[in-house]
């Protein structure tokens, strides 16, 4: 009986947390849709997410593309299918690895930074101060981050796609002695718009999730430096898990008929 009670209690806690998160998300989105907009804040966040994440996301994509080419070469050689390398690289990158690895990298970089910044503002009463200066914290802090996450991650992932494919190209041409022209031609041959678009939609969702988690855990942090640290950890872990879950769900939606 005690065991059942524990399960029940855990379930209630889970429902409670989900409800709070959903309400937070709803409130955040509603502020994204209603003016006024704090353009300076939005711009600052966009630069932070879009521009300053470029090196880390670009490097990730470059090496992923290179490894993909190497791996599939050694794997496919067993059944004489080396010709498929170009296709495998471009499809893996655009559909899966670009958005997922990009999202995870941004979760570590941006989600953590958001949680730490907003969390510090919470425990040092800066969020209270915002309210007393007639500025809605949701509008000033949360909405700009959600907007920036939602819009910048697709752009970031598009760049990552290109870099990743280029990485595969480099390895194939300079290490595996493929013909550059035919490699590029094979890259294009089987690529369909839905491959890229599905990846960009995923990126938008992941960007939103990362920003939401950073804001949510930061906003509700309490208890000084330790609380902020906890919030940062929670934000990154929660965002990473949600990225993996949403990735599965979205893949199901986009490619279930095939």
């Amino acid at each position, binding site marked *: 009986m005690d065991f059942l009670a524990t399960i029940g209690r855990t379930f209630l806690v889970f429902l409670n947390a989900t409800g709070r998160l959903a309400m937070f998300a709803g409130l955040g989105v509603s502020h994204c849709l209603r003016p006024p907009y704090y353009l300076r804040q939005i711009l600052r966040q966009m630069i932070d997410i879009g521009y300053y994440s470029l090196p880390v996301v670009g490097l990730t994509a470059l090496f992923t593309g290179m490894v993909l080419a190497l791996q599939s070469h050694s794997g496919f050689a067993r059944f004489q299918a080396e010709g498929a390398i170009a296709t495998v690289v471009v499809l893996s990158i655009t559909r899966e690895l670009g958005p997922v690895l990009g999202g995870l990298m941004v979760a570590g970089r941006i989600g953590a930074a958001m949680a730490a910044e907003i969390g510090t503002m919470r425990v*040092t009463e*800066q969020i*209270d101060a915002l*309210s*007393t*200066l*007639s*500025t*809605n914290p949701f509008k*000033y802090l949360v909405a700009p981050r959600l907007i920036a996450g939602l819009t910048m991650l697709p752009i970031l992932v598009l760049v990552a796609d290109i870099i990743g494919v280029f990485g595969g190209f480099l390895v194939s041409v300079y290490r595996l002695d493929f013909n550059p022209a035919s490699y590029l031609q094979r890259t294009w041959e089987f690529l369909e718009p839905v491959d890229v678009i599905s990846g960009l939609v995923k990126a938008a969702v992941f960007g939103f999730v990362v920003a939401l988690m950073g804001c949510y855990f930061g906003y509700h942090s309490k208890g000084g430096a330790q609380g902020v640290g906890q919030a940062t950890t929670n934000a990154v872990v929660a965002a990473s898990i949600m990225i993996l879950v949403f990735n599965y769900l979205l893949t199901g939606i986009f490619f279930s008929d095939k």
Partner: protein
Amino acid sequence: MSDTTNGGTEINGAAGNGTPKIALRGVHKRFGQKVVLDGIDLTVNKGESMVVIGGSGTGKSVMLKCILGLLHPDSGQIQVDGENTTHLHGRDREKLLHKFGMLFQGAALFDSLPVWENVGFGLIQGEHMPRAKAKEIAIAKLGAVGLGPEVAELFPAELSGGMQKRVGLARAIADEPDIIFFDEPTTGLDPIMADVINELIVQCVKDLGATAVTITHDMASARKIADHVSMIHKGRIIWTGHANDIDHSGNPYVDQFVNGRAEGPIKMQVRAL
């Protein structure tokens, strides 16, 4: 303890200039098991400077946050200009907060913004003033708290604690609010600067016609800026009276506090080493 003297003044009740600016009626607030406010009754009239004194941890800051709506009281009424504000949310709350300025105990400066933008924040975001004009006003307000224009470009982390406090003060008064709350405005300042700040608070009330509520432990400051003084103890207001009466309040709690004695009815929770 609620029947303790109120100093025999007319301030409890709406006598004088009509509806009180701020009125708290039976405000309760607790955190978990810990009761912090246990039925606060407080009246502040328009244009008056009220000083709230009381021991550390008795709920003074919590009371101010309840009035601002940063914390929600569990029960009781908080009226501003005669209207109950406890249920205000969103836009209505925002509009109400336009009337208020607040100096937080820990200054609570925005550390991502330079000093001048901190001070001009309410002007830029709240009143949509052009940034150049807001900066001018911000520098003027900084001057009033004894900070030169070179400070304007610094970031809060580059200031000393006392300087941060003064920037917080400049921010609280920058858009000339109707009602200003000062949470320990002089702690962390040297005695001379403390007096400058006292003068400034008096000036805000006299010149701008603002209503001020100041929390302080500094009796010299209380004497200088108060029209009325209220003492809070164990979550209740146990004494309210004219500033001139604090030395002969006839209330042993107030006596002990004003004279800073360890012996008396207020027992500090300390154990000998």
